[in-house]
């Protein structure tokens, strides 16, 4: 982490994302605790892994939220923000690894894939934490110098997308008889597809930072729209709220007949 100024000044563009973070981290924690409780009660390891994954995602969003809160309070992207970004990314990566473990516990362990993703996470972890990412540093300060930001984002995106694609392919190969369960898995697949778009937009935002020096571009807002879709779809797909279940059952059965 780079300590000391100059600092990027506060921009009102962070407010929508800040509000979204404030909504999303409690949702993530609620979902995580629900999954972990159910997993423990029923002795389902995969649910527990999924719970840890959402717990990590929740923690990542909470840390990002604290970083932005600090920016709003002090009016500059100070050290807390600079620390929050790589920390949030790193915890997010841990969450993604738990997603992989969830996949392994449900679909069987694959050593080669485990080694590949573990090594990749290690490399990405180093890339994300390098000072040359210039988190919260004005563009003019590091203009002309090498910026790692794009490569670390790209590596994170590829890691996450690799794991999501593995899960999507595994879920798609399932032959489920129960129509509602099948629909539940469809929702999970769509939530993962949303996450792929989320990471694509985060990477585009990084490209924008590299070109203009300004973060929190429109791509970041679009990314978090996909992020929101992910949370809604995965919440419905994984917990199936009791009020929604009979309605969906009726709809699906109606469509089949």
């Amino acid at each position, binding site marked *: 982490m780079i300590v000391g100024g100059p600092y990027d000044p506060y921009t009102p563009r962070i407010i929508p994302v800040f509000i979204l973070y404030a909504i999303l981290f409690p949702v993530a924690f609620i979902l995580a605790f629900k*999954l972990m409780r*159910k997993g423990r*009660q*029923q002795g*389902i390891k*995969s*649910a527990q892994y999924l719970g840890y994954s959402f717990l990590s995602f929740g923690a990542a969003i909470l840390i990002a939220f604290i970083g932005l809160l600090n920016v709003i309070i002090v009016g500059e992207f100070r050290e807390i923000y600079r620390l929050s970004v790589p920390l949030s990314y790193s915890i997010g990566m841990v969450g993604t690894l738990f997603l992989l473990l969830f996949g392994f516990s*449900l*679909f*069987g362990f694959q050593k080669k894939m485990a080694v590949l993703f573990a090594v990749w996470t290690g490399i990405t972890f180093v890339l994300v934490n*390098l000072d*040359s990412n210039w988190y919260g540093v004005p563009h003019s300060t590091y203009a002309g110098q*090498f910026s*790692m930001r794009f490569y670390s984002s790209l590596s994170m995106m590829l890691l996450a997308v690799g794991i999501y694609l593995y899960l999507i392919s595994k*879920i798609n190969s*399932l*032959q*489920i*008889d*129960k129509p509602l*369960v099948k629909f*539940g*898995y469809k929702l999970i697949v769509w939530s993962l597809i949303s996450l792929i778009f989320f990471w694509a937009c985060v990477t585009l935002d990084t490209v924008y930072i590299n070109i203009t020096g300004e973060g929190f571009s429109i791509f970041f807002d679009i990314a978090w729209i996909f992020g929101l879709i992910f949370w809604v779809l995965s919440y419905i*797909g*994984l*917990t*199936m709220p009791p009020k929604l*279940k009979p309605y969906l059952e009726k709809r699906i059965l109606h469509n089949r007949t």
Partner: protein
Amino acid sequence: MDPPQKLKLKDFSALFFGSLIVVLLNFTYYFLIHYIVADYPADFWTILTNFSLILLIVIIQVQTIKKKRITEALTAANQEKSNFLANMSHELRTPLNSIIGFTELLIDGDPLENPEERTELLHIINDSGQLLLQLINDILSITKIESGNTRIEKREFNIRDVIDQCKHLFQKSLVRQSFIIEDQLAVDSELINADQRLILQVLINLIGNAIKFTPEGKNIGVILSSNSEELLITVWDEGIGIDPADFDRLFRPFSQLENPFTKAHQGTGLGLYICKNIVELHGGRIWVESDKARGTRFSFTIPYATPIAQLNKAAEEFLDTMWNA
């Protein structure tokens, strides 16, 4: 196929020399920076270049080891094929020699002289022909299995029916021994989803062996049992038993153990190898337990559901449980 040999130090030569080159390049680079271009910052590109070089070396090393492994595997496969061909030719020649030899005797001899000896010779020719046919059938089975062309035609059937079928098939051979069926199957666990023809083939092989190697007056039998995931079938006998040192050889092709019974009952030495392959094709396991004093027990399992079906079921149960818990 023999397991691949352990990697030796010399296999990592590319990694050693590659790393040495990187270290030398680094020294040269830093020497140039510090003494010629003073105060030049060691930037990210240095790290990236080193990283890329090391990555390249690792890739080359992995490829070298992979190539070595492939060569080893190909050599071993080739050796195995040669052994198989040598064994096969030998096994084919034995019954063929007796067919040719005894038919020549019959051709040269007087048809009216010694009719009993003629009948005996004809029996030997017939036995040799049968053995030859069995050998060719076994080789065809193996070739099909090994080339991955064996089609498992799965359908649900009752395992008790197959056991009864076996008992009926061996009725004639079972005059000398008693055949005991011990049924420990739980309710509703007699139905399995497998290829009935292939499972019958396994049972015929195992029961046939049990009959062959069990002296008169002793018993042989089948035990049917199960757990929630798989059906367990055990074929046991009170025969001559097998030395535990020979267990590994048993499931290899053309492996016949030396004992007075193998000499008396000719076999192809392929039966257990075929059984192993059939059971494994169904996702099951086969093993042997034996005691020279008590006899032998061959056991194999057949999973009630295929791994894919199990996976589908597990995935279905996962969401269902999550929603209803």
